[in-house]
């Protein structure tokens, strides 16, 4: 073996070990700094997409736009009526809470973000979004869409942030299984009962990102397929009540000591494009 090969081999090994042994905080900073080299390319890609979308918009026929506009007006009017109703419920809830001296629930403040990149490795479930420290983001903020919970912020740089998605081993979510029943008759109402509490651990399949495992359910759990899974608010990261998905099936594990359920996520993780970050 030539001497140059020996030297190159030694240098690369030493460098690899040195980089891998960096303290976690330094490694994260270093990682974010290297990742920022890609910012011009991300910017270029985003502008190209915007130009393509704008070009596409110009060729949409006026008739289709008018129809869409009318539909959106209708939806908007319906949502306004619903919002009024919700506000009334909120006020009532707050009043009752203050009467019972319960802790006040603060309303959610959310901020829209675009997904700019996904993890290039197949064994992690992560995305990067175009919000960072300058937008007020910090680690552990919940990320969601209108369909349900997506994950939490795990790393933040000045202009972008990494979001670890549900199903990744680094995103455990305290969850509850809720049974919703709608009673019929004159006093029709929706009743929700918490069936059990558990923790969303990892995805069940490498290929299917939409199914995750809900572990640590009690062995006598009454969890049934079709029941909703929502965040329980335990653990302090995710507020209570965000929809996660629906139970597919259950099975006993560890010789029947506890039960595990497979959950179909409400959000299609492979089609993530726009998300909402819940701001503090």
């Amino acid at each position, binding site marked *: 073996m030539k001497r140059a090969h020996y030297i190159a081999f030694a240098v*690369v090994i030493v460098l690899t070990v040195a980089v*891998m042994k960096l303290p976690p905080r330094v490694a994260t900073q270093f990682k974010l700094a290297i*990742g920022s080299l890609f910012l011009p390319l*991300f910017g270029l890609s985003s502008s190209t997409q915007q130009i393509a979308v704008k070009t596409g918009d110009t060729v949409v026929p006026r008739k289709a736009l008018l129809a869409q506009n009318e539909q959106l007006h209708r939806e908007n009017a319906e949502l306004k009526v619903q919002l009024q109703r919700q506000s009334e419920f909120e006020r009532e809830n707050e009043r009752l809470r203050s009467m019972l001296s319960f802790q006040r629930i603060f309303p959610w403040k959310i901020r829209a973000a675009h997904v700019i990149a996904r993890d290039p*490795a197949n064994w992690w479930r*992560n995305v990067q979004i175009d919000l960072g420290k300058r937008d007020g983001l910090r680690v552990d903020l919940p990320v969601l869409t209108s369909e349900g919970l997506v994950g939490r912020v795990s790393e933040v740089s000045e202009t972008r942030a990494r979001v670890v998605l549900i199903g*990744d081993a680094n995103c455990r979510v305290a969850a509850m299984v809720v049974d919703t029943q709608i009673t019929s008759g004159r006093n029709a109402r929706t009743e929700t009962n918490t069936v059990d509490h558990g923790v969303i651990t990892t995805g069940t399949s490498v290929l299917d990102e939409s199914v995750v495992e809900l572990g640590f359910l009690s062995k006598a759990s009454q969890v049934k397929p079709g029941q909703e899974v929502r965040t329980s608010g335990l653990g302090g990261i995710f507020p209570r009540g965000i929809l996660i998905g629906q139970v597919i099936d259950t099975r006993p594990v560890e010789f029947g000591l506890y039960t595990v359920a497979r959950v179909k996520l409400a959000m299609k993780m492979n089609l993530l494009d726009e998300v909402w970050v819940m701001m503090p």
Partner: protein
Amino acid sequence: MSALNTIFILVLAFVAVFMEASFGTFRRFLGVQVDLLPGLMIYASLSSGTLTISTLAVLGGLWFDSLSANPLGVSILPLFLIGFVVQRCRHLILREQTYAQFIMGFSASGFAPLLTLMILFSCGAEPIVGLGFAWQWFVMTVIGGLLVPLYFRLFGKVYRTLGYERVVESSFRADREIARGRG
């Protein structure tokens, strides 16, 4: 040409890592993201020196890990080992032959993720690996194999475009010209 070759390889590695992170067509349809770096390392090891291989392994690995949730530095060693071994044996490889290029790319694209996963598990990380990984691994190796001949063609075209054109020698020699006429 050597420095230019290294620069081209590094630029392509940078763009390749960016594309892996931002274009999800393969992931959407096949459930796999193809790794473009092992194939590029095969091209580098068959066409360049140790310095290019080491630089590509270090920079390519760091770029990849910076956009991934991998611990920083995990991807350097698999890339470097591929380049190092191939370069040591390159006198035995028919590097101009497409099938040899395919086999090298196929093997490298299969070896890199396995070694990366081994390092990740030994570091205590919890990557998502299951039965579906066999499918991902198969797609990665096949596409990784197909990419190497493409890299050779791409770089060949670039050098033909940027390099000096080879002078074609004419069979005409002025000193051997037979002068006809009465003079």
